[in-house]
């Protein structure tokens, strides 16, 4: 029995008694990486935390056993559990920025574990930390620990958190979406070093993620979860090549489709509707956009791609009038667009609509769906009473929600439904241009796919023009006529989507395209080999 972790019939419930996990069992061998995959609410993180004998936010382990090296954690006393956490089994969270205390240097936080558990002396812990820093490819491993969390980059901080988790030489690492918050080019770096480090020290790992392509690179076996229960478990090859269950098949085929879809869309386009004319912008004294030149024709989809900090969202704020350019001009339908939305006429405000990344904060929680969609109908189109209700019903039907939803508050909707309501609110204004700012990045893959399909349908039916801002190249590939790549506030390449994906000219574009994980077990090794040569 080489299983280091053995979970049997694990049940976890919230304080209100709602069961989140309905009897999940899993085994983890020494040195093995088991991937837990599923959409949000599937119970992945709950399993990850429960394997440490921990329930988040009042959740309780209500049944089953969690055997760590033969000892049951579920029935263990609090001090016994605490002795194990960090020392034998350690956790790496999605957001390293939130996991580090900004007031203390990294070193102090990383060696705290071994000192607290009495496993090492301070010099030993420091030496081990430096070894980990080296293994994780952090710059100047000798002195890296003296920095504060804000003095290192996001990718470095995520690696520092892995070092923190490894500080007690644990048997098991629980990695909860460790690369999800990172840019693609950074993600590949962290993924690589993470895998190397885990292999080097023979650590076992539970790797939690929603991205099949990412997990395919690191996991030996995969467990697919849905609604707090296991869908299927198998080796990574088996799940990817021959998924048994229908849900897994959909997950795999969706991911496959998003990667292999024919690049580019070809819409019939009309005259130029938006022209961003040599625009620069700054937040205070920090310049964020440099001489950006861009044109969008009526009926087409232009994607703006870039990593965080590339200025793509700033561009959206500029067009919508929330930020004034420091130089240059934005022209809309042939006329100069007033810089501030305050100076724009109601009709101009109507013609440009914005859809946001997080539908949770884009909807007023105290207004029903009907009020949310009805208000722009009233302000922009003067519809009231019965006419307004009819139009709300028509819009709800168009975006694929039942009419009864009009009476609901946003709190009673799922993430995908909320995003649909946001789209309906924008549609209510009958806009000429829709700016979609990362509209799918907060949604689960299958839900995101539905939203994209809806947006495409609307474009076909209404001839909508989209300015699509995203970091997700697979979205761009399927949706955009033209793609603009931005880096550090500048446009580095602009081309037809098909051309861009087939023959990227700019080195940064090439790096960006190469960094998108493929649904192929050997992809990471290939990238590695390509880099070495």
């Amino acid at each position, binding site marked *: 029995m080489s299983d280091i972790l053995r979970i049997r019939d694990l049940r976890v419930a919230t304080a209100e008694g709602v069961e989140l996990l309905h009897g999940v069992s899993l085994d983890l061998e020494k040195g093995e990486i088991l991937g837990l995959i599923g959409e949000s609410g599937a119970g992945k993180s709950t399993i990850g935390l429960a394997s440490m004998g921990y329930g988040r936010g009042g959740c309780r382990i209500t049944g089953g056993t969690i055997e760590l090296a033969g000892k049951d954690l579920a029935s263990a006393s609090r001090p016994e559990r605490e002795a194990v956490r960090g020392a034998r089994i350690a956790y790496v969270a999605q957001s390293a920025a939130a996991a580090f205390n900004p007031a203390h240097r990294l070193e102090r936080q990383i060696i705290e574990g071994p000192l607290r558990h009495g496993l090492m002396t301070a010099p030993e812990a420091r030496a081990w930390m430096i070894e980990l820093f080296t293994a994780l490819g952090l710059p100047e491993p000798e002195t890296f620990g003296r920095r504060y969390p804000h003095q290192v980059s996001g990718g470095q901080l995520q690696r520092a958190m892995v070092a923190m988790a490894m500080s007690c030489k644990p048997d098991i690492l629980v990695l909860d979406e460790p690369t999800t918050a990172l840019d693609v080019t950074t993600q590949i770096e962290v993924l690589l070093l993470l895998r190397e480090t885990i292999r080097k020290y023979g650590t076992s790992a539970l790797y939690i993620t929603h991205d099949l392509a990412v997990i395919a690179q690191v996991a030996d076996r995969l467990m697919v979860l849905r609604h707090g229960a296991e869908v299927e478990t198998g080796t990574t090859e088996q799940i990817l090549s021959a998924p048994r269950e229908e849900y897994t098949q959909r997950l795999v085929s969706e991911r496959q489709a998003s990667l292999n879809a024919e690049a580019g869309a070809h819409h019939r386009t009309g005259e130029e509707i938006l022209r961003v004319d040599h625009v620069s912008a700054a937040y205070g004294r920090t310049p964020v956009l440099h001489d950006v030149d861009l044109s969008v024709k009526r009926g087409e989809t232009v994607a703006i791609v870039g990593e965080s900090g590339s200025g793509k969202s700033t561009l959206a704020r500029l067009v*919508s*009038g*929330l930020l004034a350019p420091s130089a240059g001009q934005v022209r809309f339908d042939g006329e100069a667009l007033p810089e501030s*939305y305050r100076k*724009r006429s*109601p009709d101009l*405000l109507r013609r440009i609509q*914005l859809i*946001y990344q*997080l539908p*949770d*904060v*884009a*909807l*007023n*929680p*105290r*207004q029903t769906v009907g009020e949310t969609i009805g*208000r*722009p109908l009233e*302000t*922009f189109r003067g519809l009231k009473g019965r006419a307004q209700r009819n139009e709300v019903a028509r819009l709800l039907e168009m975006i694929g929600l039942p009419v009864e939803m009009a009476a609901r*508050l*946003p*709190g009673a909707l799922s993430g995908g439904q909320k995003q649909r309501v946001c789209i309906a*609110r924008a549609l209510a*204004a009958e806009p000429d241009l829709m700016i979609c700012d990362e509209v799918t990045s907060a949604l689960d893959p299958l839900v995101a796919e539905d939203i994209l399909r809806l947006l495409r349908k609307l474009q076909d039916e209404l001839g909508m023009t989209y300015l699509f801002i995203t970091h997700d190249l697979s979205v761009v590939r399927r949706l955009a006529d033209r793609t603009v790549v931005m880096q550090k506030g500048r446009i580095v390449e602009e081309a037809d989507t098909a051309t861009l994906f087939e023959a990227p000219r700019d080195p940064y574009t090439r790096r960006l395209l190469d960094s998108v994980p493929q649904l192929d077990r050997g992809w990471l090794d290939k990238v590695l080999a390509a880099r070495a040569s």
Partner: protein
Amino acid sequence: MSRLSNIPLTGWIGMALIAANAILFLFGPMLAPFGQEEIVGMPFDMPQPGHPLGFDQNGRDMLSRLLYGAQMSIGISLAAVCLSFAVGVPLGILAAIRGGWLDLVLSRVVDTVMSIPVLISALVVLQALGSSLPVLIVTIALLDSTRVFRLARLVAQGINVMEYAEVARLRGEGLGWMIRREILPNALPPLVAEFGMRFCFTFLFVAGLSYLGLGVQPPFADWGGMVRDNQQGILYGLYAPLFPAAAIALVTIGVNLTVDWLLAGHTTVQGDNR
């Protein structure tokens, strides 16, 4: 809001105390067996049949005065708190939405007022203008509205940067809609909690002013004033000052328990609807 069965015992106690005080407030004078100025016995006389709480320092019926005092004490606090919210909340939200110089001016004025201890400001104003009921209420309300302003501004600033507020601005919504429909409904939980707390503070503050002789003027009964008037009774081991003191304590405890219950689990503000 929670279902009835989810309300904890302390919540029920708090609401029962508030209900009892509401009845006193509405019907107190009608229930009182004697007038508030009527001298019906010996000063500081012990409780006896017909006078269950005994007599005060002038020989007036303690129970009757407590019942009359309920209207005065609770009425002043309620009026003052309502007025302070009516002033503080709109100004706070306005400052948050408009920002710029308006925010700057309002905030600095409020900071200045807040830097002077409330009791001292109140004493100065009441000395200068004389302690009539309207002056008392308006003075307390304006001093209190600075606190309300700060809270309303803070909460509204959080909501104002939410994307749904941005959507409304981009739709060209006016100030009225922004305050009434976008911000106020989402700011309500913390404001309601603050309302309860402010009521308690104001209640104690009025009691304190009365105790200093600047609050409600005789012969009108109010609980704070009654504690003061009967204080020498404590030297002789009499119960007289304890009754109004207990009444003040019960209102405060009642409101606090209710507010604690309302606040529990509702601490997230800014309309986080996840």
